[in-house]
C-alpha cells in the first residue's frame, strides 16, 4: 500500500535553511483497545524502538496507563520519559495486527503517535520514497516471527 507524505508547516528557522514546509511520513491508523477505537495520524519512525502514544489517546481508549509495564525511553537531549505498555490492535488499511504499544502520562510527546520497530516494523516492510513523496508499506509475516523474540532492555531510544 502506498501512502502519500503529509505536508505540514515548518518553523521559521527550518524555512530559512530548507523550505517553508516539512514532509512527514505519517499515516492514518486506528488503535483498538477492547471495544473502543480511535483513528489518528502516526509517524512512521524507523529510529524508534517501539510504538508510542500520548496520554490523551489512552484516555480516549480507556487505557489505565500505569497498569502497564513501564519502560523508559530517551531521545535527543537524553531526557528519560516513561511509557507504560499495553496490548492493542493496530488497524492500517486492510491490515490488523496485535501489538504492545507504550502510553505516556504526558499529553505532549511531540507528535500524535510513533510507529517504531517493536509493534509496527516487526509486522511490515516499509520503504520511504522521499523524492516521490510517498511511503510504501507491505505486510511481512516472516519479519513478524523473527523480531517478536527480541526482548526489551531498560532504556530505549525514541
Amino acid at each position, binding site marked *: 500500500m*502506498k501512502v*502519500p*507524505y*503529509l*505536508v*505540514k*508547516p*515548518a*518553523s*521559521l*528557522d*527550518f524555512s530559512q535553511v530548507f523550505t517553508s*514546509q*516539512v*514532509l512527514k511520513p*505519517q499515516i*492514518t491508523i486506528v488503535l483498538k483497545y477492547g471495544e473502543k477505537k*480511535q*483513528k*489518528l*495520524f502516526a*509517524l512512521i*519512525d524507523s*529510529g*524508534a524502538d517501539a510504538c508510542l502514544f*500520548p*496520554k*490523551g*489517546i489512552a*484516555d*480516549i481508549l480507556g487505557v489505565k496507563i500505569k497498569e502497564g509495564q513501564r519502560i523508559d525511553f530517551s*531521545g*535527543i537531549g537524553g531526557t528519560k520519559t516513561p511509557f507504560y505498555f499495553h496490548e492493542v490492535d493496530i488497524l492500517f488499511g486492510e491490515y490488523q495486527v496485535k501489538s504492545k504499544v507504550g502510553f505516556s502520562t504526558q*499529553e*505532549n510527546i*511531540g*507528535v*500524535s503517535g510513533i510507529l517504531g520497530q517493536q509493534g509496527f516494523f516487526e509486522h511490515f516492510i516499509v520503504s520511504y*520514497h522521499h523524492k*516521490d*513523496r*510517498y511511503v510504501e508499506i507491505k505486510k511481512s509475516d516472516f519479519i513478524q516471527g523473527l523480531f517478536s523474540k527480541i526482548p526489551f532492555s531498560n532504556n530505549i*531510544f*525514541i
Partner: protein
Amino acid sequence: MAPIDLTPILKQHLGKWVALSDDQKSVYASGDTAKVAADDAISTGHSDFTLLFVEPSNLLYCG
C-alpha cells in the same frame, strides 16, 4: 504521488490537537489534548474523524 498538504488548515492550530474530517479538508475541533479535541468533535455531531497533533511552529521533531 502528490503529498497531502495540510498547511492551509493547520496554520491556525499550531501546538494543538485537531480532529480532522476524513477528506482532511476540515477541522471539526481543536484542543490542548487529544481527548478535548475528540470530545469537542463528538459534541458537535462528528463521530468519524482523525486526530492529529500539530507541532508548534518554533519546534521540529527529531525523535
